[in-house]
């Protein structure tokens, strides 16, 4: 008997008390809230991100290029990784050298390590928990490019922000590799003091794009 068969047989024996007619599918009981009404969505997101010691700036939709350029300049970032599908107009005001990561020509690991930062968009953001989710879409790229560089500049559009975690889970496609980011990398392993900056990007900067009215 294979281990697979052995384990499944043991499981079935262990569950002898479960009535044979008990439905094997559970109606999602729900009953819990989609969000918790803690305040205006964008303000809450900004507050939570700041709490995690991310840098956050609210920017107007027609000023993204200028704000990206200003952020990179303040950071002193001159060699910057970008995913192939990032809107090129966002980069038009900056004089940084772009390392464009494409499926055909991925930026080598050593170059990612040597880059000054990375600029991406995101898939969804959650206000209540200060979370940004990347799903590997063309304007976010493969996971390594937002991991190895020490500085991540992320552009979040107002229409991508939901209030609560359940709303975000419903919008996401589990078939894609997802990375949920809530602030810069951190540890609480030493006396449970939170310290920002271990292996992931030590600086997370978020440009929160105001809705166009």
């Amino acid at each position, binding site marked *: 008997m294979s281990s697979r068969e052995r384990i499944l047989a043991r499981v079935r024996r262990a569950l002898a008390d479960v009535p044979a007619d008990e439905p094997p599918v559970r109606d999602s009981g729900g009953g819990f809230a989609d969000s918790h009404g803690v305040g205006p969505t964008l303000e809450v997101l900004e507050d939570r991100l700041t709490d995690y010691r991310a840098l956050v700036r609210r920017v107007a939709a027609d000023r993204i290029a200028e704000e990206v350029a200003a952020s990179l300049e303040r950071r002193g970032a001159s060699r910057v990784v970008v995913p192939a599908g990032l809107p090129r107009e966002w980069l038009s005001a900056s004089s940084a050298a772009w390392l464009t990561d494409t499926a055909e020509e991925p930026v080598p690991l050593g170059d990612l390590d040597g880059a000054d930062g990375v600029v991406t968009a995101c898939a969804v953001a959650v206000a209540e928990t200060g979370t940004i989710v990347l799903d590997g879409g063309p304007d976010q790229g493969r996971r*390594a490019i937002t991991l190895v560089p020490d500085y991540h500049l992320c552009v979040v559009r107002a229409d991508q922000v939901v209030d609560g975690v359940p709303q975000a889970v419903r919008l996401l496609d589990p078939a894609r590799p997802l990375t*949920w980011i809530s602030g810069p990398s951190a540890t609480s392993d030493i006396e449970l003091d939170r310290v920002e900056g271990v292996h992931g990007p030590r600086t997370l900067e978020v440009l929160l794009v105001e809705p166009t009215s």
Partner: protein
Amino acid sequence: MSGTFLGMPPFPEAARDAVNDSRLRHNLRKATHTIRDRRAAVVDEMGADWQRLRAEGAAVKEHTLRHLDRYLEQLEESVERAGGRVHWASDAAEANAIVTDLVKATGETDVVKVKSMATQEIELNDALARAGITAYETDLAELIVQLGEDLPSHILVPAIHLGRAQIREIFLEQMAEWGVPAPPGLTDDPRALAEAARVHLRERFLRTRTAISGANFAVADTGTLVVLESEGNGRMCLTLPQTLISVVGIEKIVPTWSDLEVFMQLLPRSSTGERMNPYTSTWTGVTPGDGPQEFHLVLLDNGRTDVLADTVGRQALRCIRCSACLNTCPVYERTGGHSYGSVYPGPIGAILTPQLHGMSSEVDEALPYASSLCGACYEVCPVAIDIPEVLVHLREEVAASPGHAGERALMAGAEAVLSSPRALDAVQRAAGLGRGAVPRHLPGMAGAWTDTRDIPEVPAESFRQWWNKRGKGNQ
């Protein structure tokens, strides 16, 4: 190379040494109170919804366990459809053999590891070492434990028993042996220590081509695995290598993707006391051009089906390893994790370890008693495991086992005396007459009871004697 829990004394003995260690008690008190307060704050802000989420979390897990065979098959199918390979391991030895063979097949002799309770439980690192493979722990606390040849003492923060000065010493003395040495002027500032860990592991992450992880959740309908972490070491291991091997207990399954709506709220708030942990990675099989191109899922039984068979004890398998019960437990706060003699310490360990092992040793039999049954663990458990109920259930099992004939004889004697007024009267009279001769400490087996308690003074006459005399006088 790493320590082992094997051969540790049973809880009462181990705990005695721990409570006499004032530095340990200081570290534990500080850490458990910090995290307890943080958890309370982020749970309170959820208002009444918290109890609804808790009930839903418990219901999802309970349902999954009751149909585990079906969900295991569904998970296997989903993972394989997405390009992963699924392996089944009945016990620790089989899991270790599977992983060792998989690593050997890659031709690598170094692997990086994400913190994983399952691989600690099966002592995978030792098994790999015997096969000439070095496993590098990359979680900061696991790194501290590995470098210090120490043992984990907490589910979430394995080095919770160590203070910053001790961690600095370990880094200065041991890092060079394992790779990039600690900077010579290293201080005990947590920032400096975290930086030293970053530098120590950076090259390793960029170079190592095989990684081993566990998982917090495995989603049956989509085949998605989920890892929550803080430092980014998890992302490194799950993203940069070519081959990823995940060892996951069969109880980690949730049926559907939408169940994460519940657990992604319950787990971070219960474990680190944050609204959300810094990083969560989810992956489904293999994604061409992004991350590991070879993915193996090793499903681990190792005693879990025995736990499943116990209708009272089964609820222990709902555990999502948040460690809120450790942080809130008055016993854990004073004894620390090592006293429990298992990778699963604290209240959840006291019910999980003896069930996984089948109550096979003195250490296991002592664990259900490592509690005052105050119930604080149940209150904070995000999946409502009634730990005190299981503790009492396991105590019944211990008391019924062959090694406890003496206690059973004593209890049978007590029952005979207490259920017969005549016998009780006779014993009370005898005790009253001989009361000068009753020692403060009882000899033999009963001495364990009087070690920590005084025998109450025996009165010259019993209540019955007094009542009867009084009644006659009044007539």
